[in-house]
């Protein structure tokens, strides 16, 4: 009840007129509005907007530059890695070569040593052969001598005398036989 009544009063009070439609205040509002807009426009165009615009442009430039620099660095890193890989491959190849060379050298030394050892062995064998054959020859001569001497002794014992030359020839014939 009270509310309705009060609302009625309120409506009455406001019915006196909206301040918005009080035309006597219009010149005042419009004047101050134009002044304010003018000052805002002045401040914005002289100071704020160019400044913000330049900051934004600068930031955009910085970001673009940084991205380009990052791209460049990335490329450099890729190059460096490639160079490293190349160097590694080369080093491996070199190492392989050195190992092969070393192996070849060792093989060569080994071959020489083997050959030398073979030669020595052969020489030793030949020497031994020679000694053996000498010994054999010595033995044959000794046999001939013994046969000659024995024959001479036998002949002497049987009372004969014999010519040394004929004896030697007879023994030689018999030995060959």
């Amino acid at each position, binding site marked *: *009840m*009270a*509310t309705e*009544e*009060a*609302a009625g*009063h*309120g*409506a009455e*009070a*406001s019915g006196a007129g*909206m*301040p*918005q*439609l*009080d035309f*006597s*205040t*219009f*010149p*005042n*509002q*419009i*004047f*101050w*509005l*134009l*002044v*304010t*807009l003018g*000052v*805002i*426009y002045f*401040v*914005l*165009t002289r*100071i*704020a*907007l160019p*400044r*913000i*615009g*330049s*900051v*934004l442009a*600068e*930031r955009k430039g*910085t970001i673009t530059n940084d991205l380009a620099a990052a791209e460049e660095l990335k490329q450099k890193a890729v190059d460096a890695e490639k160079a490293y890989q190349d160097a590694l491959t080369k080093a491996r190849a070199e190492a392989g070569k050195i190992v092969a060379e070393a192996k070849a050298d060792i093989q060569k030394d080994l071959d020489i040593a083997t050959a030398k050892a073979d030669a020595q062995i052969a020489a030793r064998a030949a020497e031994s052969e020679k000694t053996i054959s000498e010994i054999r020859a010595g033995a044959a001569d000794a046999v001939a001598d013994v046969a000659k001497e024995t024959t001479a002794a036998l002949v002497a014992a049987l009372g004969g005398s014999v010519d040394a030359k004929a004896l030697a020839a007879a023994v030689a014939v018999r030995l060959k036989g």
Partner: protein
Amino acid sequence: MAEEAHGEGGGLVFHPLDQFKISPLFGDGPIAWYTPTNVTLWMGIALLCIIALFVLGTRARDIIPSRVQSVAELMYGFIYKMVEDVTGHEGAKYFPYIFTLFVFILFTNYLGLIPMSFTPTSHIAVTAVLGFGVFIAVTLLGFYKHGTHFLGLFWMTDAPLILRPVIALIEVISYFVRPVSHSIRLAGNIMAGHAVIKVFAGFAAIAAISPVSIAAIVAIYGLEVLVAGIQAYVFTILTCVYLKDALHPGH
């Protein structure tokens, strides 16, 4: 309770429109066009806030912005993109004018939400100057840029010939209604919201209703925070649309 309603202090008194009253700052004399009034005061405060945000806030010109600077940059970027998107590339040179309108409306709207403050944008005198200012500027610009071709805006060449005069009439009417709707939309929205808050505040004097009333004030206040921003946005984007019509009347 009925007694209370008529009481001088603390009673149930509704004066929802008192907040829109214009009064001189000094003395109580008549209001001449130059008198400093509460209009002057709150427009001045808005101006100071704008300077604080856009001049002092960006003083450092940091590449990595401070919080205040990034707010200023956000607003700049937002409106700049809007102008460019709506009006095209050649509309970008009108950006400072549109940005001036936007920040003025935005700041006066939001400052008006401070209790006991005054909201210049709730006055039709202010919004009409803004709306008709845009209308006249855009119309003159259209004629300056395109001469009589600007009238092609009203002559739909892709409509059937018989309908064209009718459409032209409707288009002309709608064109001239633009500044009216443009300005009344802003003043009406702001005024209505403030008045409704005041009405609910009046009900808060009744103990039984006051919790509801205060809850309603909070809710409407939240709505008004939205409206303050949205109306500034709407006014700005409509200005862009009108500007686009002036720059490209051939649709």
